[in-house]
């Protein structure tokens, strides 16, 4: 199209300007043949290129085309040069197919009876609305998808309570986390078995060695591993809730294993990004006991313990429960039926006394309830302990104690002169409809809002704690003392060839020499 345009244009000129049309035509032809003959290295000639550019400008007719002519030209060129890439896998389509089942109405349970209405599924969209006021959230589309995914989870299992815990951003994929409270004693914990075995590995190894060295037993180490802190059972302490994660709404929910105290206390010493692959090995020092799912679970436990807060008065301790003389204080609380909603002024007050923790503090030991290592392991001598157990296992161990449940967040430890929480109101312009929210300064990304009877916590972030100092990897432990030489293993000279020959001769002669020879051979080894 533009080619003809070009020709017409020159034809006009010919009419106007020169009587010698044939001369003009000749020149035109010369010019055109020149243009068509100039071919670049890649086999594109100028004529085709001009045609492309001009036709694009004429079809699209962009405004002030003169300024973008270079860009058009460049684009035309780059499109020609671009090597043919293999068509991308249409992951968008794959995902859409995967999410489609979320939108399918299940046909059995839709008779809006009381049972259906009493489902533990939370009203996430409403919560998301308040979180949006607070300046955190995941957008409406995504929230709705998460809601559907949660519904799927609820439909599958028998849960007492389900809530959306938050999103942890990974480097390759993200985790969406659902927190569920299971009915007492659900199915057997399949994952427990695995951990048990890994813990006992060391013991087995020692046994094996003993078995092998019948003739010449290896010296037995007098080192006794510090007794490992027993984990808390599912349904108690840090394992009060069970967590399910998925990489995107619609993909299957994966239940996380329960967390062991070692995993929590080790997680405090490392700082590693999540990748989104649950079974990835954590590369860190000190070595982490478990894979990414254990680390994730430990971080969830830490974040929940520090940042899950509710308006004061929402929960109260159960009356029946007498104050038992156990460390850790009261463990159970129940919803306060008289709670009518906390006043806004109290929630946004600087003292932060309007909010209380409703999740138990995790002790340095990695448990919420202190475990006394001297109770069962008291007869064993206390050897050099590993650092994390130092406090716990030292003679006359000091019981670790955290703040009791339902402590106001105002007394949380400060981070270097900085308050641990920031409380705010979502709107200063229309305060009568605003909600109050707090955000944790210790775990950036943890938010909680409250308005009237409604309140909720969420976490969106990388899953790392804020610290004013830079991370410093733990130094390797000090080298142990060298073995002191005792008289029984004094170095002796290597046997000379003559000695060896003698020994060999003796061996051939009879059995008597054998023992001697063996001893010698061993000495040799030791000298190496």
């Amino acid at each position, binding site marked *: 199209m533009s080619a003809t345009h070009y020709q017409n244009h020159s034809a006009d000129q010919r009419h106007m300007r020169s009587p010698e049309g044939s001369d003009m035509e000749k020149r035109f032809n010369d010019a055109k043949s020149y243009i068509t003959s100039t071919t670049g290295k890649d086999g594109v000639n100028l004529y085709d290129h001009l045609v492309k550019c001009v036709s694009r400008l004429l079809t699209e007719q962009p405004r002030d085309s003169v300024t973008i002519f*270079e860009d058009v030209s460049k684009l035309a060129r780059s499109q020609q040069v671009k090597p043919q890439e293999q068509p991308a896998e249409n992951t968008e389509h794959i995902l859409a197919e995967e999410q489609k089942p979320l939108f399918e109405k299940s046909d059995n349970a839709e008779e809006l009876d009381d049972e259906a209405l009493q489902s533990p599924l939370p009203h996430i969209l409403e919560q998301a609305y308040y979180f949006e006021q*607070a300046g955190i959230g995941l957008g409406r589309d*995504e929230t709705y998808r998460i809601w559907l995914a949660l519904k799927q989870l609820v439909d599958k299992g028998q849960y007492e309570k389900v809530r959306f815990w938050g999103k942890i951003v990974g*480097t390759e994929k993200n985790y969406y986390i659902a927190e569920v409270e299971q009915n007492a004693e659900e199915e057997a914990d399949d994952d427990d078995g695995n951990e048990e075995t890994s813990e006992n590995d060391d013991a087995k190894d020692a046994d094996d060695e003993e078995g092998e060295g019948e003739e010449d037993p290896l010296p037995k180490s007098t080192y006794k591993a510090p007794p490992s802190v027993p984990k808390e059972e599912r349904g108690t302490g840090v394992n009060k809730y069970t967590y399910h994660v998925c990489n995107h709404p619609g993909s299957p929910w994966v239940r996380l294993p329960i967390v062991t105290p070692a995993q929590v206390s080790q997680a405090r010493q490392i700082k590693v990004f999540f990748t989104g692959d649950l079974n990835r090995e954590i590369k860190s020092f000190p070595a982490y006991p478990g894979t990414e799912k254990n680390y994730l679970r430990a971080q969830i436990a830490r974040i929940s313990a520090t940042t899950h807060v509710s308006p004061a008065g929402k929960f109260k301790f159960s009356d029946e429960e007498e104050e038992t003389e156990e460390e850790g204080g009261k463990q159970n609380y129940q919803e306060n039926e008289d709670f009518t909603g906390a006043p806004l002024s109290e929630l946004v007050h600087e003292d932060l006394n309007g909010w209380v923790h409703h999740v138990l503090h995790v002790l340095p030991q990695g448990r919420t309830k202190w475990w006394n290592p001297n109770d069962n392991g008291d007869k064993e001598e206390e050897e050099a302990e590993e650092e994390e157990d130092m406090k716990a296992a030292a003679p006359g161990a000091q019981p670790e104690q955290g703040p009791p449940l339902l402590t106001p967040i105002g007394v949380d430890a400060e981070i270097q002169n900085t308050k641990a929480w920031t409380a705010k109101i*979502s709107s200063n312009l229309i305060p009568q409809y605003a909600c109050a929210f707090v955000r944790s300064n210790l775990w950036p990304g943890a938010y909680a809002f409250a308005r009237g009877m409604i309140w909720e916590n969420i976490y969106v972030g990388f899953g790392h704690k*804020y610290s004013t100092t830079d991370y410093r990897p733990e130094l390797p432990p000090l080298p142990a003392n060298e073995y002191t030489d005792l008289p029984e293993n004094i170095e002796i000279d290597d046997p000379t060839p003559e000695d060896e020959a003698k020994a060999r001769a003796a061996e051939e002669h009879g059995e008597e020499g054998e023992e001697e020879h063996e001893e010698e051979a061993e000495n040799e080894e030791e000298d190496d």
Partner: protein
Amino acid sequence: MGIEAKDFSLDLDLLAYSGIVFSPEQRAALQTSLVILKEQYKFKTIHLWGKILGITEDYYIIQGRQKNELQDRQFLYSSDCINWNMLTPASDDAKELSPQCQGRFTGDPSHDFDVTKYTVSNEDTEEENVEEYKSQLREEERLAATLWKIEQDAIIIPRGSYVLQPNGNVERNRTFEGLTIIESGKLSNYFHFREPISLQQKSLIHRATLDKSLHFLDTIDEDVPKGWSVQYERGSGLVQIRSLKWPGMAFFHIPETNRYGSLYCGIGEENKDLPFML
């Protein structure tokens, strides 16, 4: 990079995937402010840049740009999205001090931070001597220095979205049609939107092969350590790139369209532990 005023509310929704959300009140207020400020300061384009979370107040940041979008940039900050203050560019002193500054932004621009700077003389010799300087840094200056540093490290654009005009100006490329899905997953197709640093150190031969009007910035795949996380959200329909060096910096691009943008929403502190965390 920020997000431009005209696509404001559409783009904001796309960044929610990274947890960046503005309340309806803030959105409305920002929308109004952006229009007024653009007129008032005679900016060529105006962008919402992000927010810095402080202890008592947050800073909302707007960036205005003149003809040359690479160089003529100006920051405005506000704590309520309505009353804006011009931020003077950071002095060299402030740039030097702010990484040493400990503690979070408070939200009060006139707050003074105590900064202790250490200089080591005669390093690795017997007379090694560590000197201590105590100085003060005003929060406003720290803010300017931090924003400058974030711009240096973490503001990115897709390849071809900005062009170097023959007259030296850097402008948005109107003919940009987006990266393909495959291209958009590769870090080599994104540029740091700052004056090039490592490009100048490349060999002349290498530079001669580049397209001068499109490839005039540093690509981000050369960063050491690799502080970027690329993800496809919504399948391949949306690319999200998050900076690991400045957690809270999120960039989005919809492949095969000219929609892209980024926002920073974080505490304004660099992740210095990055090398240990990968």
